[in-house]
């Protein structure tokens, strides 16, 4: 047990928890004023929903005793046996319960990311049911595959430092699937849907950046050099992607503040899987390439008239797909001896494993989400009524007004 490591992961827990309200602000600023509270709630509620699910059985499905490489057993249900002592598999220098708490924060924010796909029209009770199913059927198994002892992708040697596959690709492609099922907002493509308060979004992006230090540097699970490297690569990628996005939006008109904030988040999502395995200079390349990938994915989505409303797919899914592949290019054991070398250091096999993990994550998360969303759509319905949508979800779903 190491008190330095324990202290740092305790702080990281708090930092990652803060990212969920930060995401709520990030999303909340981009919707119309009649849907602000609804959008905030779609993110906020996960602190409560997963805060319970994770203790009851979520953690156990992800990190319990392996069953066939696919899922964890129920031996940790109710945090049974998850106590102050370290765990041989996951946390040699910190309490097992701290590892479980840190992982909880990831399980909280991941489904919150998806909500950007269906804001301003989703029916609240269907959303809650979907979210619980998604956490159980997509997040927990995927988390086990990549990070759980005995998980099949982990055994294959996939490198995902802080959740490129588990968090960002899964959320991004699930968002795409859900958007296809629920359909566009009323009037999408005809009336402009102006973000009502970009101040909130910029504030949210800033807090996300701060929180991401806990997300990535905390994923070292120790207060050591790998953690510091992860912090630096995180910062460098966000900085580079922010600058590149600013230039791209400038070329198309003016340097958009919403665009700059978006670019920063894209850089953060892209570097997440790589952060503990690559150098800061490689992170610069990761951020620089991520920005145009997400930017032009957004333009493509817009041209196809697809209402994946807040671009979760473009920002998280596409950026982190690139980041996970880039981990297979730039990874070096000089940064992290527990990692591996990538293609550029003569290990093409690692790139193959990364590519497989990306493809598997995309297919798995997209398919399960599509099926679950379709089933809910057929049974209890995914959308509010047209009149409720017109009134706005703040009043029609929640009976409160954001600005009185």
């Amino acid at each position, binding site marked *: 047990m190491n008190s330095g490591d324990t202290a740092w992961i305790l702080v990281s827990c708090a930092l990652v928890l803060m990212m969920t309200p930060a995401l709520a602000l990030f999303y909340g600023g981009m919707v119309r004023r009649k849907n602000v509270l609804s959008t905030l709630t779609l993110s906020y509620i996960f602190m409560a929903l997963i805060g319970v699910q994770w203790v009851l059985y979520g953690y156990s499905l992800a990190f319990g005793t392996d069953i066939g490489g696919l899922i964890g057993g129920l031996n940790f249900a109710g945090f049974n046996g998850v106590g102050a002592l370290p765990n041989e598999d996951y946390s040699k220098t910190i309490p097992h319960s701290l590892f479980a708490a840190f992982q909880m924060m990831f399980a909280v924010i991941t489904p919150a990311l998806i909500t950007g796909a269906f804001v301003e029209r989703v029916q609240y009770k269907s959303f809650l049911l979907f979210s619980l199913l998604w956490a159980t059927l997509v997040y927990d198994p995927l988390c086990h595959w990549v990070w759980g002892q005995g998980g099949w992708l982990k055994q294959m040697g996939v490198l995902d430092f802080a959740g490129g596959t588990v968090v960002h690709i899964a959320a991004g492609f699930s968002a795409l699937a859900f958007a296809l099922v629920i359909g566009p907002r009323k009037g999408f493509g005809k009336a*402009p849907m102006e973000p009502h308060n970009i101040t909130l979004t910029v504030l949210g992006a800033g807090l996300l950046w701060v929180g991401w230090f806990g997300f990535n540097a905390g994923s070292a699970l120790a207060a050591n050099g790998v953690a510091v490297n992860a912090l630096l690569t995180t910062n460098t990628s966000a900085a580079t992607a922010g600058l590149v996005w600013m230039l791209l939006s400038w070329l198309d008109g003016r340097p958009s503040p919403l665009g700059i904030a978006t670019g920063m988040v894209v850089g953060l999502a892209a570097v997440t899987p790589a952060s503990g395995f690559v150098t800061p200079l490689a992170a610069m390349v990761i951020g620089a390439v991520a920005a145009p990938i997400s930017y032009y994915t957004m333009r493509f989505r817009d041209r196809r008239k697809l209402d994946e409303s807040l671009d979760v797919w*473009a920002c998280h899914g596409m950026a982190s797909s690139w980041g996970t592949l880039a981990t297979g290019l730039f990874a070096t054991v000089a940064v992290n001896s527990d990692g591996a070398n990538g293609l550029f250091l003569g290990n093409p096999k690692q790139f193959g494993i990364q590519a497989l993990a990306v493809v598997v994550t995309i297919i798995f998360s997209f398919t399960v989400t599509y099926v679950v969303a379709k089933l809910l759509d057929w049974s209890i319905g995914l959308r509010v009524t047209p009149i409720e949508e017109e009134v706005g979800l703040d009043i029609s779903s929640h009976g409160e007004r954001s600005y009185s």
Partner: protein
Amino acid sequence: MLKKIEAIIREDKVNDVKDALAEIGIVGLNIFEIRGHGRQGGIKLSGRAGTYMVDMLPKIQVNIILSERNLEETIQAICKSAYTGEPGDGLIFVYPVEEVIRIRTRERGQDAVMYPGDIDARKGRGHVKET
């Protein structure tokens, strides 16, 4: 005879128009922040990726209740100060007003829209009660 002027002007011209009106002695006015469009159509804003059109543009509506004898001078002042020559300069609507009552003094009609030092006082017209 009392009239109401509703002048729809550019947001960025509101101070010029206020100054021009003060210059000729139009004291009482209020403004609305409104949205709309005429011939100007819309404007392009930066989005997250690329630009998008917004067709309901922010404008200012200046409301003035005044005596008909001051109408033309006021219209000229607004036209001059709100002018850029580009589409989107706005419109002025003029309506008849049936009655005006100043709540504090119960003055009615023209008396109710006169102020110390205003356009009428400068021209020696009417009586403005000292306050």
